[in-house]
């Protein structure tokens, strides 16, 4: 009833103040429309990136400002627009609603809900294009994002505020890494944003269902511009997602954003650019395709304590064609990001999942963010694996002539590789990762046959949980392995080995 009263008073106010202000607006005429692009004559006062109002509630964004015409991308359904229609300047730019209310929702590139759960209450709106935080506001990366994936947390750790690229061919498990990371944040303080660009709608639905079934939608926002939507919306989606993430960062909170994937984003931008008749460069991408991604990824940052200490971590995804990481877009994004996780089809088919190529994957800043406990057990890991991968090529011709030290290295490498295998949607907590890596790196699992590693690992975790939960708890809270705890851990592992035999 109160609501009806409210509405009545609002209407009364509207009628009383009906049509007072008359202002001059800039207008133009549509001279050409098609493929999601409109060329408009006139609009002499239009600004770059300004929203343009067209008939039937269609809006466009001015991208090309020429001497007497404007090239604009059209957002949404544009089949009602025809030559000769009037276009008006609005003086606004594209904005998206941001805030707490978006968490758990699926929205489109303009922040409108598409999950059928009703309107979204938002705190405010932010422009989708914003300038990245400057040097004064930033701090070095110092806290880890726990992905829950053993191979990543130990070898190429990701810090909050970092940009880590996930790159690989189709179906090598790129999205799975991103989803595992989201699932692992359950009950944590990270807000996750998953931006789906140009993906099949069925796949996005599947992703939402997966996240829901693991209870991960409670801290996740999904921004989707699916393959059926216009290139303009696909182009805007990552910027919209980024603005949503920035809101949390500016509140002093930590957020994680996944762009899945930026190859399709570059395609959408290439389409727009070619239709706007901008000159084409390498692989027909326009000249500013580097800036397209650099300005987006620069917006991921870690704020210093005086400015709230919030962070926005970015996990952009790039899909390569036939493992070609020296193509235009992959090299661009590799050079913008702070490291990459490189996934390979061969490794994937060999059963190594995540199919990460240790040699080509790096994290340039994440080491500073790694916990002491993880540093202690994982310090030698990358070296061990790199040596193993090199030697395993020789070992293919037979191991009979090799010396003892080499054989030991080979065996350790096999165990470590086996330990780092992990099935999808089963992230491990920090303490579990530390315990198993401690065991394998200190040769406690020497006598376990390689094919039984997985089951032994399972029983080790179960044993630790039931018999010695205090060790895991200590690692989780202290983030380091104290001397006393290490002794306890050694004893516990020895005890566990007794149960095996």
């Amino acid at each position, binding site marked *: 009833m109160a609501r009806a009263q409210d509405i009545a008073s609002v209407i009364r106010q509207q009628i009383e103040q009906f049509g007072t202000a*008359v202002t001059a*607006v800039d207008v133009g005429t549509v001279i050409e429309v098609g493929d999601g692009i409109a060329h408009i004559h006139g609009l*002499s006062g239009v600004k770059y990136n300004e929203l343009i109002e067209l008939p039937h509630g269609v809006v466009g964004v001015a991208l090309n400002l020429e001497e007497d015409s404007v090239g604009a991308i059209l957002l949404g359904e544009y089949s009602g627009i025809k030559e000769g229609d009037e276009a008006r300047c609005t003086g606004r730019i594209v904005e998206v609603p941001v805030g707490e209310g978006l968490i758990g929702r699926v929205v489109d590139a303009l922040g409108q809900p598409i999950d059928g759960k009703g309107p979204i209450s938002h705190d405010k709106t932010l422009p989708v294009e914003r300038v990245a935080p400057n040097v004064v506001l930033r701090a070095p990366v110092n806290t880890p994002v726990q992905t829950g994936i053993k191979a990543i947390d130990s070898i190429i750790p990701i810090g909050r505020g970092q940009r880590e690229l996930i790159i690989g061919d189709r179906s090598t498990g790129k999205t799975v890494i991103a989803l595992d990371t989201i699932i692992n944040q359950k009950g944590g303080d990270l807000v996750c944003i998953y931006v789906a660009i140009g993906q099949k709608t069925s796949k996005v639905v599947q992703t939402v269902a997966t996240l829901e079934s693991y209870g991960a939608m409670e801290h996740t926002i999904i921004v989707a511009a699916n393959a059926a939507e216009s290139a303009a919306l696909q182009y805007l989606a990552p910027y919209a997602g980024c603005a949503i993430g920035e809101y949390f960062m500016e509140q002093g909170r930590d957020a994680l954003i996944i762009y899945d994937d930026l190859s399709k984003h570059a395609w959408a931008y290439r389409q727009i650019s070619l239709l706007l008749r901008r000159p084409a460069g390498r692989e027909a991408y326009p000249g500013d395709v580097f800036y397209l991604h650099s300005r987006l990824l620069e917006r991921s940052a870690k704020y210093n304590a005086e400015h709230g200490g919030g962070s926005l971590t970015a996990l952009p995804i790039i899909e390569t064609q036939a493992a070609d990481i020296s193509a235009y877009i992959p090299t661009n994004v590799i050079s913008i990001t702070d490291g990459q996780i490189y996934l390979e089809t061969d490794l994937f088919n060999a059963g190594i999942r995540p199919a990460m190529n240790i040699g080509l994957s790096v994290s340039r800043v994440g080491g500073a963010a790694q916990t002491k406990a993880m540093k202690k057990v994982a310090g030698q890991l990358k070296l061990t694996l790199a040596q193993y991968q090199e030697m395993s090529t020789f070992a293919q011709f037979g191991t009979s002539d090799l010396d003892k030290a080499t054989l030991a290295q080979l065996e350790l490498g096999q165990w470590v590789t086996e330990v780092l295998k992990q099935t999808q949607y089963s992230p491990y907590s920090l303490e579990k990762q530390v315990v198993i890596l401690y065991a394998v790196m200190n040769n406690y699992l020497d006598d376990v046959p390689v094919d039984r590693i997985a089951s032994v690992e399972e029983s080790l975790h179960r044993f630790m949980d039931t018999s010695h939960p205090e060790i895991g708890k200590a690692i989780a809270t202290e983030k380091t392995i104290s001397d006393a705890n290490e002794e306890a851990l050694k004893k516990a592992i020895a005890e566990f080995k007794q149960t095996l035999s």
Partner: protein
Amino acid sequence: MAKIASAKRHAQAVFQMALDANEVGKWRQDLQTIASTLSDPELSSILENPKVHLSDKMGLIAKCLPDSSQLSLNLVYFLVAKQRLGILGQIVTEYERMADAHEGLEHAHVTTAISLEKQASDKLAERLASLTGKRIALTSDVDPAIIGGFVARIGDKLIDGSTRARLQALKKTLVETAH
């Protein structure tokens, strides 16, 4: 698009010449005469015929345009020689726009629901002139669909003071509040 740009450049060149010689008004008349004379289909078909020699065409043009200055004849010769006669109309339009801008004249088009009286339209022109800081050449038409008030368009600027626009704005805000 490319054609408009080309016409613009030609018009700019002509306007510069006119400005230097301080003959902006005379050129405007000359160009109008040229445009109306050459719009004759028989004449233009001869001028565009590649079989006719250029010197013959030039003679014909000189005869058809006896009162024109040498420079304006040169313009036509040039267009004929370069086979750009097709953009003459656009050149004239562009030239007139430049001349108007130079003289501080702005064309305004006003739409009203009922026809404007002379007094009202003069007052409106005066008001628009004070708004834009330019002299206003007013044209008007009547469209009952706007219900009341007026819609004025000056160049790229639109002042929509019609009842229709206000009703639409009211509808929009009411729909938004209802959500």
